């Protein structure tokens, strides 16, 4: 790691929205003025105590923050090595970390006088969070969701509709998160004057990657204080799952300059990181390219055409990754690994059995990696893993994968 070149890993992005060579503002001219307006408004809000006071209030009374940092005793015992702590962001209102960021963006949208909110969603967690906060503030909400994901995440589709959102199934491409993001961008370019695009991850054109990271950083800030309170020191290793990478960036960011803390991001390996691209591991199996407003690692063919990822987890099914992760990967500050669908399913079962927590399939990828490393580590080694979502939405997918038939209508 080029430590001599950098005093801090927390200064990015630069004024062009770059993290090293990654990030940027690769959008059409129609959107460019909006993105500049958003950046200016975010800069103002960031230094406005009233903005943060409103966030704090909603985080505390509406979301239920801080989320606990929970020592998982039976999981630790079963793995027989490092002490495993779970950052319980699955206990947030709406069941995942997504709402941390949505609140921030919706407050910004209100400051900018926007009345219509659009969002893309994969697993539906970001869509549900956006629909929730829109209901809370009486804003119109349109959620773009790949038709394939609408199919496999029915409970969340119903939730969004209950909350008053319009869910638009996207049929272009293979009908997953990438295609939903394309259609959200098409909506935005058409309705620029009254519409705010609430992006769910640390990707997209600048300032989104930095802004979403800042809103999600509450996860890492709390985890740091809580670990200090419980163990009197920082964790040795922090682990999080990555699709676009917002929960991971939220956990990682406050620890970037604590160089003794090992940082591990876990990508979705699908059926295995192979030539057939039956995975979503952009860093492990992709190369740099430009999509959705930023330069980052992408799954693509030799001609620069974007490939569809594959994962059991709809929330990780994205062929790219946030540009800050791409940078952290290249400079070596964070390690990135991949976990297959079947390994994630094993972690799902273990978590249910040992801790009485039904996790979402996304953090099961992180947990599966914890299962690999914890047994080899000493008992005073502290692992902090982000349990970024709960698994209620996934029970039908898991049942199917385990060969169990359940009738949702029964």
């Amino acid at each position, binding site marked *: 790691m080029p430590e001599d070149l950098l005093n801090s890993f927390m200064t990015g992005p630069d004024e062009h929205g770059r993290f090293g060579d990654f990030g940027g503002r690769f959008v059409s001219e129609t959107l*460019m003025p909006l993105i500049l307006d958003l950046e200016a408004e975010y800069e103002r809000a960031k230094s406005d105590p009233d903005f943060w006071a409103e966030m704090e209030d909603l985080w505390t009374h509406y979301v239920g923050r801080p989320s606990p940092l929970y020592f998982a005793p039976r999981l630790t015992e079963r793995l027989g090595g490092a002490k495993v702590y779970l950052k319980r962001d699955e206990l947030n209102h709406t069941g995942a970390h997504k709402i941390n960021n949505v609140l921030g963006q919706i407050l910004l949208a209100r400051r900018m006088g926007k009345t219509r909110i659009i969002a893309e969603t994969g697993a539906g967690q970001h869509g549900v969070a956006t629909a929730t906060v829109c209901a809370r503030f009486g804003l119109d909400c349109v959620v773009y969701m790949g038709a394939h994901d609408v199919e496999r995440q029915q409970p969340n589709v119903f939730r969004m509709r209950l909350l008053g959102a319009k869910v638009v199934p996207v049929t272009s*491409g293979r009908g997953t998160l990438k295609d939903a993001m394309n259609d959200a961008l098409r909506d935005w370019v058409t309705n620029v004057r009254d519409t705010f695009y609430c992006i769910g991850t640390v990707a997209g054109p600048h300032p989104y990657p930095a802004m979403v990271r800042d809103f999600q950083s509450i996860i890492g800030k709390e985890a740091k204080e809580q670990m200090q309170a419980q163990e009197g020191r920082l964790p040795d290793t922090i682990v999080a799952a990555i699709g676009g990478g917002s929960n991971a960036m939220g956990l990682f960011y406050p620890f970037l300059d604590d160089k003794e803390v090992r940082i591990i991001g876990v990508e979705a390996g699908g059926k295995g990181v192979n030539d057939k691209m039956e995975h979503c591991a952009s860093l492990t199996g992709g190369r740099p390219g430009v999509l959705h407003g930023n330069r980052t690692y992408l799954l693509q063919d030799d001609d620069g055409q974007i490939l569809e990822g594959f994962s059991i987890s709809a929330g990780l099914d994205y062929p790219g990754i946030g540009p800050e992760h791409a940078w952290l990967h290249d400079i070596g500050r964070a390690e990135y690994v991949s976990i297959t669908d079947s390994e994630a399913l094993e972690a799902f079962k273990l978590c249910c059995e040992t801790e009485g927590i039904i996790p979402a399939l996304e953090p099961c990828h992180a947990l599966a990696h914890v299962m690999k490393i914890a047994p080899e580590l000493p008992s005073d080694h502290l692992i902090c893993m982000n349990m970024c979502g709960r698994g209620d939405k996934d029970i039908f997918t898991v049942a199917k994968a385990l060969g169990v038939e359940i009738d949702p209508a029964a």
Partner: protein
Amino acid sequence: MTRIDDTFRRLREDGRKAFVAYIMAGDPDAETSLAVMRGMPEAGVDVIELGLPFTDPMADGPTIQRAGQRALAGGQTLTRTLDMVRAFREDDATTPIVLMGYYNPIYSRGVARFLEEATEAGIDGLIVVDLPPEEDDELCIPAQAAGLNFIRLATPTTDDRRLPKVLTNASGFVYYVSITGITGAAEAQAADVAPDVARIKAQTDLPVAVGFGIKTAAAAEAIAGVADGVVVGSAIVERIGRGDPPADVLAFVRELAEGSHRT
């Protein structure tokens, strides 16, 4: 001087407006799309815009999206698109060709190598939708250095404060996107477009062509009345998409060209 500059100068001297027509390279297959392209100059097309297929065309409506998917399904690649340009250049050394698309296929090829291949093949200009002036170092500046025009998009959201930035490294012509939206969407109205074209012309000597939402010869004629050129894409691609033979597609192109040139 590129073929684009020459064409607009000649048109201006003749007191005529430019008709710019778009097709997607390789749609629905390489042979058909080359046949349409070869017939375009004779049908009255002054500048050919050749779409470079991309899996994720974020600024395009369903018509162009499907055209790109058809082309990719038929095995179209950047190399084949450049081959198509070379084949066209065998019998036409004068009609300007603008390659229009998204950055990733170009970035993936490598900017230096792409520029070398594109100029050698006979491309005259580039429109890259997802490269705003903020990213000029990526391709715009190297492309101009290689002798290609970099055609900039101006939109209804490009206000007077921002316009100088958009015009700074523009060349060839300015492409005014007449609506906020995707290709092939709402119909552009000449009365709405006229003040914006005037606003742009007040700040540049480059010709201004108007596109997005022009679907008929009558609409082309109306827009030609207020701009230096008219761009039609989706309406042509729509006919290719429904399986019209090249001769029928070109008959429609001729109507549009006549509309544009009537002014």
